[in-house]
C-alpha cells in the first residue's frame, strides 16, 4: 500500500481534491503506477470521498485506462478499416511474432503489451500505432522488428523516432514522424493570417455584433451535425449563469477523420483565437480544449502555443487592453469515441463516464459544471477567426445556400494522394475523387462509419449539409475491396464504442453484427436480410444519442446502395437457413470424453 497511497495522495492534492478532475487524476496515477488496481481505486475513492464504484466506473469506461498492467511498452495498434486496407494484419502478426505475445495481452516478463485500438487519426499514413503516447506511422514489418528489438533493449520510445514529419511536427515540442499531408489549401483555414488580428477585430465590436456576423456568414458546426454556430452562441449568451464556458471538441474519433490533427499541428493559434472570440461573444472567461488521448503527443506543443499567446496578451487577463479575460486549459480524454458527442464530452471533462446526457437541458443551458457552455468543433473556431477578418458576406459567397464556406476533408483509403483537402461546400464526390486520385473507387464512405456509403451512381452528389453531410471523413474504397469486410469492421467499432447506456445501442449493435456475420457466411435467406434492414431502422429510431442513431448506417446504407451484393450472398429459394453445424457443435464434448465424433447427415 505504501507507494500506491503516496502517489494517489500526491496526485489528488495536485488537483486540489477536486473530483471533477478525476480524468487527470487517473491519468497521472496510471502514469506512475502502470495501472489502476482495485486497491488504487479504493485509495482514490477514499481520498476524494466518493464511492469506489464511481472511480471503477470511470477507470473501466475509457480504453486507455487499465486495471491490470499493460507492459512497460504499451503498443496500441490501430484497427480501423483503412488500417486493414493498408496491411495492418501483417503488421499485427509481426508485432506478435517479435514480441512473443498475442494482441490483448502482455509478454510474460511484462515488457511489452499489444492492444488494438480504434482509429487514431492517422488514416493517411497507416498502418500506425501509438506506443507509450508516441505515434509511429507507415509501419512495415521490418520497422516493427526493429522497434520491438528496441523495446526489448530498453530503449526510450521517443528515441525510436528517427524521421520527422513536415511543418510543426518537427518542432522540438512535438518531434513526431506524423505527416500533415496538406494536399489542398483553401481560403478559410490555410490562407495566410496574422495571429491576434481576428481577436482584435472581434474585441472592437459588441459581443452581439460578433454573433450577428457569424450568423450572417451562416456558419454551421464543422463536426458534422451542422448546427448553426451563431444560434448556439446566442443561446449560450442569453442563458443565465454565474459563469460560462467555451469548450473545443478536439475528440475527433470518427474513423477516417484527421483534419483536426492537422489544424492542431499547424494553426493551433487560430483555433485558440477562435475560442477566445467565442468567449467574448458568449460572455465566458474560461475555455477548455478537450483533446483526444491519441493526440497526447501534441499536448506539450499546444501548452507552449497557449503560453506564447498569454505572453502576447491574446489570452489571460485584460486581453489586448480591452478588459476581456479569457484563458484555456487542456483536458485530455482517455479513449472513448462517444465523447465526441458534446454532452458526453462535458461529462468526461467533469471526471465521469463519458455517457451522453439527457436533453433538455442542452449544454448551452446547463453544460460544464452546470454552467452555460458552448461546445464547438476545432474547425468551427478557425472559421470564426476568418469570418471576423473577412466578414460574413465574404464567407457566405462560398459553398451552397445551406452550407456556407469551405470544408476540410480527411481523405484516405484507395487513392493516390491521401491527406487533407480544403474544398468549397458543394463539391461533388466525383470532383473530389479526381482531385485525390481515386477515380477507380467503387464506393466512398462519406462521414465515416456513422455516415453514408455510396456507390458510383451517387458520385455526382455534393458534399454539404443538405446532401452528403460529413465531419470530414472520406474513405475511398477501391474496386477490389470486399465491402462486407469494411462494413464488419465498422460494426466492430460501434460495438466496441457504444457507451452501453441505452438498450438499442448496447444490445442492438451486437445483434446487427451477428446477423451481418450470418449473411457473410452465406448461410442466410432473403428474410434474414430483410429483417436486418428493419432492425437497423429500430436501432436508429430508438437510440438515445447520435452514436446509436447512426451506428446501423454501415449496414443500412450498404443494403440501400449495394443491395445486389447482399442479394448475392443470401439464398432466395428458401426462407430459412441455419448456421448450425452439428459436427462443429460436438467437437468439444467428444474431445473431453475421448470419442471420435460420428455425424450422419439427415
Amino acid at each position, binding site marked *: 500500500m505504501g507507494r500506491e497511497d503516496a502517489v494517489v495522495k500526491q496526485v489528488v492534492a495536485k488537483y486540489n481534491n477536486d473530483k471533477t478532475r478525476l480524468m487527470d487524476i487517473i491519468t497521472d496515477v496510471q502514469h506512475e503506477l502502470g495501472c489502476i488496481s482495485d486497491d488504487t481505486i479504493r485509495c482514490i475513492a477514499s481520498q476524494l470521498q466518493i*464511492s469506489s464504484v464511481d472511480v471503477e*466506473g470511470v477507470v473501466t469506461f475509457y480504453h486507455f485506462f487499465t486495471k491490470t498492467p499493460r507492459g512497460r511498452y504499451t503498443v496500441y495498434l490501430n484497427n480501423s478499416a483503412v488500417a486493414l486496407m493498408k496491411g495492418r494484419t501483417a503488421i499485427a502478426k509481426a508485432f506478435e511474432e517479435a514480441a512473443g505475445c498475442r494482441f490483448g495481452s502482455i509478454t510474460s516478463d511484462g515488457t511489452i503489451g499489444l492492444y488494438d485500438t480504434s482509429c487514431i487519426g492517422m488514416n493517411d499514413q497507416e498502418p500506425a500505432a501509438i506506443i507509450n503516447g508516441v505515434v509511429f506511422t507507415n509501419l512495415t514489418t521490418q520497422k516493427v522488428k526493429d522497434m520491438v528489438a528496441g523495446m526489448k533493449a530498453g530503449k526510450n520510445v521517443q528515441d525510436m523516432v528517427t524521421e520527422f514529419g513536415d511543418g510543426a511536427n518537427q518542432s522540438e515540442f512535438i518531434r513526431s514522424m506524423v505527416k500533415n499531408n496538406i494536399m489542398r489549401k483553401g481560403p478559410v483555414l490555410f490562407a495566410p493570417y496574422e495571429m491576434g488580428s481576428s481577436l482584435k477585430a472581434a474585441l472592437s465590436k459588441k459581443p452581439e455584433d460578433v454573433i450577428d456576423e457569424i450568423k450572417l456568414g451562416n456558419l454551421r458546426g464543422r463536426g458534422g451535425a451542422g448546427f448553426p454556430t451563431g444560434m448556439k452562441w446566442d443561446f449560450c449568451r442569453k442563458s443565465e449563469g454565474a459563469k460560462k464556458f467555451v469548450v473545443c471538441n478536439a475528440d475527433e474519433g470518427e474513423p477516417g477523420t484527421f483534419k483536426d490533427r492537422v489544424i492542431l499541428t499547424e494553426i493551433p493559434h487560430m483555433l485558440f483565437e477562435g475560442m477566445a472570440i467565442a468567449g467574448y461573444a458568449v460572455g465566458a472567461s474560461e475555455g477548455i480544449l478537450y483533446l483526444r488521448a491519441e493526440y497526447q503527443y501534441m499536448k506539450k506543443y499546444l501548452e507552449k502555443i497557449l503560453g506564447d499567446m498569454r505572453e502576447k496578451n491574446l489570452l489571460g487577463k485584460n486581453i489586448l487592453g480591452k478588459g476581456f479575460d479569457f484563458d484555456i486549459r487542456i483536458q485530455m480524454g482517455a479513449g472513448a469515441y462517444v465523447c465526441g458527442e458534446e454532452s458526453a464530452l462535458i461529462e468526461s471533462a467533469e471526471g465521469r463516464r463519458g455517457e451522453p446526457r439527457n436533453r*433538455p437541458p442542452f449544454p448551452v443551458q446547463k453544460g460544464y459544471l452546470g454552467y452555460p457552455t458552448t461546445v464547438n468543433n476545432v474547425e468551427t473556431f478557425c472559421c470564426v477567426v476568418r469570418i471576423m477578418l473577412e466578414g460574413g458576406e465574404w464567407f457566405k459567397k462560398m459553398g451552397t445556400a445551406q452550407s456556407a464556406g469551405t470544408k476540410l476533408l480527411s481523405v484516405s483509403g484507395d487513392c493516390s494522394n491521401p491527406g487533407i483537402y480544403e474544398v468549397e461546400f458543394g463539391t461533388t464526390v466525383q470532383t473530389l475523387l479526381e482531385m485525390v486520385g481515386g477515380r477507380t473507387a467503387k464506393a466512398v464512405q462519406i462521414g465515416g462509419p456513422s455516415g453514408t456509403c455510396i456507390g458510383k451512381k451517387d458520385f455526382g452528389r455534393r458534399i454539404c449539409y443538405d446532401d452528403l453531410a460529413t465531419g470530414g471523413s472520406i474513405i475511398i474504397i477501391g474496386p477490389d475491396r470486399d465491402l462486407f469486410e469494411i462494413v464488419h469492421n465498422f460494426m466492430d467499432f460501434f460495438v466496441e464504442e*457504444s457507451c452501453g447506456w441505452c438498450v*438499442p445501442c448496447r444490445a442492438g449493435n451486437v*445483434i446487427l453484427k451477428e446477423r451481418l456475420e450470418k449473411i457473410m457466411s452465406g448461410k442466410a435467406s432473403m428474410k434474414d436480410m430483410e*429483417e436486418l434492414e428493419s432492425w437497423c431502422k429500430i436501432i436508429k*429510431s*430508438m437510440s438515445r444519442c447520435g452514436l446509436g442513431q447512426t451506428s446501423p448506417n454501415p449496414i443500412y446504407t450498404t443494403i440501400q446502395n449495394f443491395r445486389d451484393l447482399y442479394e448475392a450472398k443470401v439464398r432466395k429459394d428458401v426462407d430459412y437457413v441455419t448456421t448450425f453445424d452439428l459436427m462443429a457443435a460436438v467437437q468439444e464434448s467428444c474431445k473431453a470424453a475421448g470419442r471420435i465424433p460420428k455425424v450422419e447427415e439427415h
Partner: protein
Amino acid sequence: MSTIQFTIDGKQCTAKPGQTIVEAAKQNGVYIPTLCHFEGLKPAGVCRICTVKVGGRNMAACTTPVADGMVVENKTAELEDYRKAIVEMLFVEGNHMCPTCEKSGNCELQALAYRYMMMVPRFPFLFPKRELDASLPKIVIERNRCVQCLRCVRAITAPDGKRIFGIVKRGGHAKINVDRELAQSMSDELAQKAMDLCPVGSILKKEVGFAVPIGKRKFDTKPIGSDIERA
C-alpha cells in the same frame, strides 16, 4: 399555476409545467410503457421503451418535459412494434430464465413481454456469460437478469450519500457493480428497498424468497399499465 394543454394520440390532456410526458400521461389516464423509470427517481432515459413521437421526432417520454400544444403520438403501430423490439432485445441480451427466477410474476420486464404478447424474441439469443455475486451479506446480485435500468445506481446510497451501486465497463460489457465496503454494511431495510426497486430479479434479498404464490403475483392476472389506463 398555469395549465399545459397537449394531446396524446388525439386525446386532450392537461399537465402542470415541469411534468414529464410520462407523468402527465399517467395523470390523464394514458399509459406509456416504461421500464427504467421509477417515480421519485431522476429519469435516466436508459431503456427507451417510453419512446414517443413529438413533431415527427422520437424522444423518451420519461425525460422530456411536456410543453403547451404538444402533439404526442404514443400507441402507433410502429412505436408499439419498436417497444416490443426493445423488450425482445433485453430478453436476448441477458439470460432470462423466467421459470427459475423468484421475481417471475412480479417482474416488470416479463410483464412488458406479456403485455406485448412476446411469444419468442425476433432476435437471436446471445447467451452472454455473466457473473453472479452472492458474496454480500444481505443481497445477491444476479447479473444474468440485469437490464441496467440504473434504478439501484440512482436510488441506493449509503448514509453519507455515497452511491453503493454503479456501472462499470462500457457497451455490451457494461455491468452493475458495488462499492464492496458500503455494500457490506447495507441494512435489511436498504437491501429490501434495492430488491423492490429492481424491476427484474437481479437484486434479491437473501433468506426470503417466493413469498407470494403463483396466481397472486402482481402481473398474474392484470397487464402492466392496466392500473393507469382509463378509457
